[in-house]
């Protein structure tokens, strides 16, 4: 499997020296090594201030490393000549759906990236329609974004990225501002993009149940990667996860409490179905 994202010894600090406050620059990322293979579905977990959003912004060259290097699809993020190529390769979806939609008409917003890339009309029309169908928003193509729900807006934002045919999509807490219905819609869309189009997904989240649906979980704490494994292996270490200040999925938590109370139940349960099954076996 080819690596699409290679991060080597990444350090980053916001430069406070310029504002004259004389504060010591605060190091947000303190030496991150991470490689992500093509087609992977990775969740990045961490509580507020762990540096997970800062890390995401490095993949898209919005922020550049203070030290170390970030390579995406073979392009170094500090290579200004190839910055548009890089951004086409790695698309980014942000938390607030309202603040990333540019146009007053859904289909024109989806076309925004393509217009910037200078894609000819016929090709653009086709790609816009295909992306809207892929996220299930084709019927809304002539609506105004203000008429849509949060989940629908976020799917439009995803369509706008997919239209650019990236190899990788970074989503920075895309469901944080949505209701449960919107969260389900967005998660289903992301999974489908990964499965059907083989797009690499880096999902930054603080919802444990979303992380549990991924193939791989990277846990960050104080600017470092502290865990990097399958969700099952990560969440099995309940004590460690809680120590970092994160929760585990509710099903895992329940089993963990049961084990502490002396019930013989497996420690690596992460979904509700597994949990129900295990409980039935014991008590049923």
């Amino acid at each position: 499997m080819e690596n699409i994202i290679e991060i080597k010894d990444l350090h980053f600090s916001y430069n406070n020296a310029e504002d004259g406050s004389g504060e010591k620059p605060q190091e947000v990322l303190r030496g991150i090594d991470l490689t992500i293979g093509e087609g992977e579905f990775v969740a990045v977990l961490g509580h507020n201030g762990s540096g997970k959003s800062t890390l995401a912004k490095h993949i898209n060259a919005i922020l550049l490393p203070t030290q170390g290097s970030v390579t995406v699809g073979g392009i170094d993020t500090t290579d200004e000549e190839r910055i548009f190529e890089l951004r086409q390769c790695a698309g980014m979806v942000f938390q607030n759906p309202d603040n990333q939609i540019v146009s007053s008409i859904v289909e024109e917003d989806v076309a925004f990236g393509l217009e910037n890339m200078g894609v000819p009309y016929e090709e653009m029309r086709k790609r816009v329609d295909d992306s809207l169908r892929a996220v299930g928003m084709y019927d809304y193509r002539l609506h105004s974004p203000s008429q849509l729900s949060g989940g629908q807006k976020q799917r439009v934002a995803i369509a706008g990225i997919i239209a650019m045919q990236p190899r990788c999509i970074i989503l920075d807490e895309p469901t944080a501002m949505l209701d449960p219905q919107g969260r389900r819609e967005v998660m289903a869309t992301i999974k489908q993009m990964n499965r059907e189009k083989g797009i690499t997904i880096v999902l930054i989240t603080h919802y444990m149940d979303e992380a549990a649906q991924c193939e791989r979980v990277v846990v960050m704490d104080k600017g470092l990667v502290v865990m990097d494994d399958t969700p099952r292996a990560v969440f099995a270490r309940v004590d460690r996860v809680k120590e970092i200040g994160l929760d585990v999925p509710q099903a895992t938590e329940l089993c963990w409490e049961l084990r502490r109370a002396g019930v013989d139940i497996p420690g690596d349960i992460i979904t509700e179905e597994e949990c129900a099954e295990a409980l039935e076996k014991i008590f049923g």
Partner: protein
Amino acid sequence: MLRDITIGQFFPGDSIIHRLDPRFKIIITIIYIVMLFIGRSFWCLLVGAVFTVMAILLSKIPFKMFLKSVKPLLPFLLITALLNLFLVDSGETLFQWRFLKITEGGLNISVFMMVRIVMLIMGSSLLTYTTSPITLTDAIERLLSPLKKLRFPVHELAMMMSIALRFIPTLIEETDKIMSAQKARGAEIDTGSFMNRARNMIAILIPLFISSFRRADELATAMECRCYNGGEGRTRLRQMHSAARDYIALAVTLLFLAAAIVISILTK
């Protein structure tokens, strides 16, 4: 209450006027304004009036809406009419009371100006009634694009305009929320003296500004992520095609203009 605000007051429809190429519509509106200002006789205005009525009928928008468009400018209209009525001194005196004097010339000019301004408002309302603001912005960008050679930032202005249009509903919603939040904390926005209310508006404006700056910052990042790089080398999803009907409409307008010119020469 804030939800009622509409900008540009576009009435979606499928009439022939709606379907005209917006670039042509803008040009036709400009010719129409020239037509109104070219002549000094009522005959010229009659040509304009026929044109206006024809266009309004074709647009299938109720005439009531056009009267509504004149309403906010009524005070201005009345002041102009009164000033002309009393200050122009030419021809036979029709009425005199102390220093107030109405002459035939004054009456003529006063009515003439009124009719001209009303028609001007109605004609330009027709443009905004039948063209959505975003299409209008786009058409203006294309019409002004030759100015790019003079380094006039056409694309940038159009982009700002369309982002402003995009964010109007978002900001209205946000203002509503902030107002409710401040009311819940006891701010008097709808009651109290004028000065008090004005002072309390600050409690709404400051949070609104702060959040707008935050939105602007996030939007700029999102646009950069989608390879935004100014107007250079951009292609467009929205295509504008001029069809036969656009040229016919333009030809008809020019015909009316010619008629107005001929009449203004003949009635000199």
